Structures are given as structure tokens and as C-alpha cells.
């Protein structure tokens, strides 16, 4: 009963819009009052591919999102572990400070950071964009990873230490496999947030770092929903590709001597 409810709700709220979006991208614009027609057209996708910067933008979007994700995971895992397993003075203060970027208007952060980026010579570069994408993502990642480490508990890691394992070995054999659910959540969040950034990318990238949103947003003004649907479909596929890339990397890092990541999903 519960299972069927889950599947029907996911079908209605997740699958159906996706299917409609894809259908929309291959059917012409429908005007109010017109009879329903199912004429097939590739015009939306042609417009999408017409812009010769599109493949470069797709590649750059994924590159920036993945770079931001790996930096996020590094910061998130280290600070999440410290916040979860260590006790130190001012812990709750630091925890709050780490969340603060979320309460700051993005524009305010971007304009302030822009000057620093120019000084550092990172303005108008893709790596500068990666760095600025950390602002709206790192707080979430830290939260998610802290929750992951809370669930893991310190005992499991102490047990591994007692059996004589070194920190890196413990990370590969115990932490990473058991934290995969949290890592997946963090990756999804980071990739999606990074790919949705227009203002931050435009300000720090200064128009020379062309990601998908930079090409995509101007089309929002048009009423051509066939083209819009094509863009949106391509856009929705990007996070899936990025998450797949992270999965592959994590599989490589995990110790290969033991067959891992069974039992728990």
C-alpha cells in the first residue's frame, strides 16, 4: 500500500513533468484556443544547438559544478566530521557562522567578492567562478555531512582504529562507503545550485565565462516554449551526468581489495 502510494506520487510529481517537458520540446508552440495538434518538430533543439557556444557552455557548466562539488566535499567532510565528533570551545558559534552565507543576499556577497577576485587575478576565470559558487553551497554541504557523521557515530571509527587501521585506510573502507547517502545528497544539492547560478557567474565570470545559464536566461524573455523546453531538458540532464561522475570517482577511491558498498545502500 505504502509502496504503491510512493510510486504513484513519484510518477505524478517527478516523472510526468519530465515527460511533458520532453514532449513539449518536440512539439510546436500551442496558442490558446487552437485545436490540439501533435505535430512533431525539431525546431526547439535546432535553436538550442544553433548557438555554437553551446557545447563549450555545457562542458564548462559541468566542469565548474564538479570542481565546486569536490571542493565542497573536501570542506564539508572535514568540518562536518569536526563538528560532529569533536568537542571544542565555541563549537555552536562556529556552526552558526558557517551557515551565515545563506542569510546574506547573493548580490552583496558577489559584489564584495568581485573586488577580491580582481585583486587575486581570478575575475573572469572559470576557477574564480568555481570559488564564488562555494558561497551558496558550502553551508548546505557542511550541514549534510555533519548529519552523516552524526549518524555514523564515533564508535565505528574508533573500532577501526583499534584494529590497527590508518586514517586513510579507515576513510576508504569505513567512512566513504557508510557516508555515501550523505555524499549523494550533498552532490545533488551542490551541482544543482551551482548550475542555477546566473548572477554570481555573470559578475565574477565577467561575461567571458559562458555557462549554460548565461546562454539560457536571455531565452526566458521569449515566449517560445518549445525552445525553452529543449533548453530545460538539456539543463535537467546535467546534474544526472555530474552525479554519475562523482559515483565513479568514489568507486575508484574506495578500497578495491574488499567488495564494498553492499548491505547498505
Amino acid at each position, binding site marked *: 500500500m505504502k509502496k504503491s502510494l510512493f510510486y504513484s506520487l513519484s510518477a505524478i510529481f517527478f516523472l510526468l513533468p519530465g515527460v511533458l517537458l520532453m514532449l513539449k520540446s518536440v512539439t510546436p508552440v500551442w496558442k490558446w484556443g487552437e485545436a490540439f495538434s501533435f505535430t512533431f518538430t525539431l525546431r526547439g533543439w535546432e535553436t538550442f544547438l544553433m548557438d555554437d557556444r553551446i557545447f563549450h557552455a555545457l562542458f564548462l557548466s559541468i566542469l565548474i559544478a564538479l570542481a565546486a562539488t569536490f571542493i565542497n566535499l573536501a570542506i564539508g567532510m572535514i568540518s562536518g566530521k569536526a563538528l560532529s565528533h569533536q568537542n571544542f570551545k565555541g563549537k555552536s558559534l562556529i556552526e552558526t557562522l558557517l551557515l551565515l552565507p545563506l542569510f546574506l543576499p547573493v548580490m552583496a556577497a558577489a559584489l564584495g567578492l568581485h573586488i577580491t577576485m580582481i585583486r587575486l587575478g581570478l575575475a573572469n576565470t572559470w576557477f574564480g567562478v568555481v570559488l564564488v559558487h562555494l558561497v551558496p553551497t558550502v553551508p548546505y554541504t557542511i550541514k549534510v555531512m555533519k548529519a552523516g557523521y552524526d549518524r555514523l557515530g564515533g*564508535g*565505528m571509527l*574508533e*573500532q*577501526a*582504529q*583499534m*584494529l*590497527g*587501521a*590508518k586514517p586513510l*585506510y579507515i576513510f576508504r*573502507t*569505513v567512512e566513504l*562507503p*557508510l557516508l555515501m547517502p550523505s555524499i549523494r545528497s550533498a552532490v545533488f544539492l551542490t551541482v544543482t545550485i551551482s548550475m542555477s547560478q546566473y548572477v554570481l557567474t555573470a559578475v565574477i565570470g565577467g561575461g567571458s565565462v559562458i555557462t549554460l545559464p548565461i546562454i539560457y536566461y536571455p531565452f526566458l524573455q521569449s515566449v517560445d516554449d518549445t525552445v525553452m523546453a529543449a533548453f530545460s531538458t538539456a539543463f535537467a540532464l546535467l546534474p544526472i551526468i555530474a552525479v554519475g561522475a562523482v559515483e565513479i570517482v568514489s568507486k575508484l577511491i574506495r578500497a578495491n*581489495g*574488499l*567488495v*564494498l*558498498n*553492499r*548491505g*547498505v545502500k
Partner: protein
Amino acid sequence: MNKVYFEVKGASKSFKTKSIFQSVSFSLQQKEILSLVGPSGTGKSTLLRSIAGLEPLSSGDLYINGVSMSQKKMKDRPIGMVFQQPLLFPHLTILENVIYGLRLKKKKREAEIEGLRFLQSVGLIDYKDAYPHSLSGGQQQRVALIRALIVKPKLLLLDEPFSNLDPDLRRELRDWVLKLLKQEGMTAIFVTHDREEAMLLGDRVAVLAEGSLQQIGPPRLVYDEPANELVARFYSDALIVDQNHYILNQHLSWSAHPNPADDQLFFEAEWLNDTYQYGQRYAHVKLLKTNRRYVVPLQSDEHAMINGERGFICARKAAIHRFTGREETDE
């Protein structure tokens, strides 16, 4: 006298200004099992964690075969530990769990063969490919013990390993553990707050209370000759007469009326209840002077009283003993 194998010298631990335990010293011979008992919150677990290297000692040192341990990192100490929870890795099979530590020293094939042999010898071979969640709590704790034993530590620490199991399972498991430890010739320190468990598993018993080691010795001797009030209260069954004197429970009796005689002592007490255990009837009474509860053996034909009714705990004067006050009690 046999050679000292493991030694703790003047170990102290404090968190900031709060002292957990101070100047704890004791030694173990090879293949000896020491039960460390004491009321909860007296630093038994912290002492064990310090020996393991999970916490640094504030002062003092540990020696295994004369080699100092305090400067060694945890992974370099030949010490194994079993925790209250089994802490099996949920994503690994039972066999993979068992050989987790062994894999660091041996090739996968060799480790697996040894793991399988161990599982076979303790009758858990059928579960080799199972995941921890499909095992019962007792079985999980058995796997945890094997996992610690298979790397052949020089010293094994057990931190209340049965505390999360129900009483029947507990009884069964502790016999099993004792047999296995003896069979492997393991030197071990076993922490518990259960007196019975301490007597069953320990070749010697150490009582840790109020931050220091009160007494260490063979279970029977510590029971019969407690060093002080704390030991008497926690480990022995005795009526504490005053700071320096006690009467063992077996010399106590209950009487509704004082029976005047020169060699008798009387302590006025309030009847609470009576219970039966191992074929003997006991009265639970509260001594009026100290408001402390005592359990006194009763004749089975003695009539029960009403809760709150007064009577007397009696003992012969000759049964009064002086606390030994000695830290080390030898046979």
C-alpha cells in the same frame, strides 16, 4: 612469583580541572584476566580507553613486556578492544568484518583462510556471507570478539561487552567468552559493573571507586576481606559497623526482638521486604542509624513482617572484622 606482563604505573587522567582517576597502578601476568569493577561513572571506561590509546593519560605510563606504550600511537599498540556495542561494519559481511584487522598484515587469501578457520571453530561459519544486521545482538558481539582476537593482541580490553544483552544471553555469552579467552591464552582486562560477572570472568578483581583503585586481589579474598568501606559496599556483602569495622552478611541474622546476651550485637532496622534466591530466603531491611539497605539471610520458617515494622539485625561480636586497608591482597 611469575613475571609481570602488563603494567600500569601511576596512571592519572583529568579533563581540564576535573580529575577522573589518579595514580592507578597494577600489573598483570601473561594469560591473566583482570575484572575491573566499580560503580558507574568512576572512570572504568576512561581507564580502559586510556590503556587502548583512545584517550591520552594525563600522567603515568603503561608497559607491555617492559615496553612503554604511552608514546605509541593507537595503531602501533598491540592492544585489542571490544566495546559495549558490537560496532560491526554494516556494509561488510561477517567474514570481511572478522578479517578487517588481519587484512592490514596479511594477504587477502591468507586472511580469509584464517578468518574462516576462526568462524568454524566458534560455530559461526554459516554466517560468513551474511551482513551484521541479520545477526542477533549476541551473535554480533561474538563476531566483534573474534574480530579483536584474530589479530592476536598482547592485551585485550573488554568494556562491558554484555551490557546490551538480555540476562539469559548474557549468562551464555560470558561462559563462551571465558572459554575462548582461556583457550587463546589471552591477557585481558574486563570492565563491568556486575559483581557476579566480575567474579566469573576474573582471575583477579580490581575495585575502582572514587577515582582510585581501592583493592585488587582474587575474587574470594576481596569479597571476604574488603579493604575499606567502598569495597565493602560495592563488591562485598557486609554490614558496615563503622569506618574501620564490618560484619560479613553470612554472620548476620534477623530477629524481631533483641535477645540479650553478652556476645551479641543488635542494630535496629526497618523491615522492607523478603525475597528468595538460590534456595535461600533473604530479608531486605533498612538500618535506622544510616538509612542504608541491607539484605540479611533469613530462616525459611521465620515469619514475614509488615513493611515498616521494626526489628533487629543481630551478629556475634566475634564476627566483627577490621577493614584490611591493604591495597594489594595476596593469597
